[in-house]
């Protein structure tokens, strides 16, 4: 009896000690910042507004991006050099890392969270991996003509374990269905000249591919793919000479707010506004440079815009009710990316050349804090785990 009591006490003490060393916590307010030049990611807590860990050894992270497991615990980081790294945000460590291609440009995760798909430039195509083990499940080359492989852009997840993407060299939109992960099937749709990026609307219904080689955006209704891709915003430049584009815009990251899509113009210092019910242009908003990211705050009341070189120190904030820029400022040098807190009270901006991530109050536009990071680029919060097309 006495021994049993002693044993119970020891067990209780051991349990307490275990709890003391690793307190339980959720993942809903965590995220990571890519440090592009040094192959590190910094893990951040959006409630404390602080970094809590830093992990190295991720290779070439220029243009890296990340997606999350459904529980928000694991991040899958796609490096430029083809590295795919699975990170445990709670234990702050690399779980697994594979080199999956020679030159990659991002990836996505399936609706059911079981399949991670990487999009590649070299060799051009997509590859599907088991999210648990990172084992290769299938490979879909982006062959658009015999022996010709395209760079893949704009990969986004869609309902039904499908992925939509575009072929930069091939001028196509493709939809690959991974409902049978080892035997994917692919549909092809002519899209237009040089699609440079894509997005899936928040409801998962439409895939949009921005075109670089012509004025316009290709649109595919994923509920009725048999109708094919069509062009919207055709000739938005109206034949006028384009301004030089010193960095390709990005479409990923929702820019759909209040029933309208806000899209970067190519070669024009404007944000194009489209009604998503009719897909007709309903306005354009002049901004201070070539837009790169045009991202809606989660409530859709504001759209934040950053710019290509040489205007990449500027940010413009559009009020969607007023339909114009209501706040313009210069938060730092080389603003490459932004991410909103899950419900939008703060926005985090990476200032590459200042080696800082800046945290701003989105209502008052005041700076709330900053985090040191070595050449920060992409910022990715776990709230993405629950969103279609992220």
């Amino acid at each position, binding site marked *: 009896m006495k021994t049993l009591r002693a044993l119970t006490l020891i067990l209780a003490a051991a349990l307490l000690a275990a709890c003391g060393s690793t307190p339980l916590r959720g993942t809903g307010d965590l995220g990571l910042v890519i440090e592009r030049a040094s192959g590190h990611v910094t893990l951040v807590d959006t409630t404390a507004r602080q970094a809590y860990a830093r992990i190295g050894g991720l290779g*070439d992270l220029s243009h890296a991006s990340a997606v999350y497991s459904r529980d928000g615990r694991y991040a899958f980081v796609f490096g430029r050099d083809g590295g795919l790294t699975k990170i445990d945000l709670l234990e702050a460590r690399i779980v697994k890392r594979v080199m999956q291609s020679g030159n990659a440009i991002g990836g996505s995760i399936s609706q059911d969270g079981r399949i991670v798909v990487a999009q590649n430039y070299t060799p051009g195509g997509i590859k599907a991996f088991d999210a648990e083990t990172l084992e290769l499940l299938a490979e879909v080359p982006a062959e658009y003509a015999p022996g010709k492989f395209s760079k893949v852009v704009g990969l986004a997840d869609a309902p039904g374990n499908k992925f939509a993407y575009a072929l930069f060299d091939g001028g196509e939109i493709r939809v690959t269905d991974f409902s049978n992960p080892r035997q994917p099937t692919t549909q092809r749709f002519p899209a237009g000249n040089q699609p440079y990026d894509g997005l899936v609307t928040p409801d998962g219904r439409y895939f949009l591919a921005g075109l670089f080689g012509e004025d316009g955006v290709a649109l595919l209704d994923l509920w009725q793919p048999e109708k094919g891709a069509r062009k919207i915003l055709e000739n938005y430049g109206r034949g006028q000479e384009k301004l030089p584009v010193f960095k390709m815009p990005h479409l990923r990251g929702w820019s759909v707010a209040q029933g309208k899509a806000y899209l970067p113009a190519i070669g024009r210092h404007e944000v194009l506004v489209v009604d998503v019910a009719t897909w007709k242009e309903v306005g354009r908003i002049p901004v201070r440079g070539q837009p790169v990211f045009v991202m809606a705050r989660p409530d859709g009341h504001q759209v934040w815009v950053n710019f290509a070189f040489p205007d990449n120190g500027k940010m413009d904030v559009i009020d969607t009710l007023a339909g114009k820029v209501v706040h313009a400022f210069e938060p730092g040098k080389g603003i490459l990316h932004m991410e909103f807190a899950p419900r939008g009270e703060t926005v985090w901006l990476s200032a590459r050349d200042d080696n800082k991530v800046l945290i701003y109050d989105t209502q008052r536009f005041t700076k709330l804090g900053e985090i040191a990071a070595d050449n920060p680029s992409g910022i990715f919060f776990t709230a993405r785990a629950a969103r279609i097309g992220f």
Partner: protein
Amino acid sequence: MSGTRLVFALFWLSTAAAATPPDAVRQQELVRLVRQDCGSCHGMTLQGGLGPALLPADLRDKSRDGLKAAIYEGRPGTPMPPWKQFMSEAEAAWIVDQLKSEFPR
């Protein structure tokens, strides 16, 4: 005689101007521009992205003048923009020389 000397002097001046490398501070700026901003299409390590790779092996068969023109004037019909508002022709040539050997970190 003086005419010959003048021509010679002009010739010397023009080659000297073309050959004058940017100073150390400017070189740093250009290296950063290439790695960070050209890098958004060509990759920070210049191994290519949406734009082609720019490593010495990739450029071996390409002419110095053609590459300089691609940087300075851009390449119509492709996403490559002209960079002339940010550098001189001599600086574009210096970048080409660095790319063709080993580009500084």
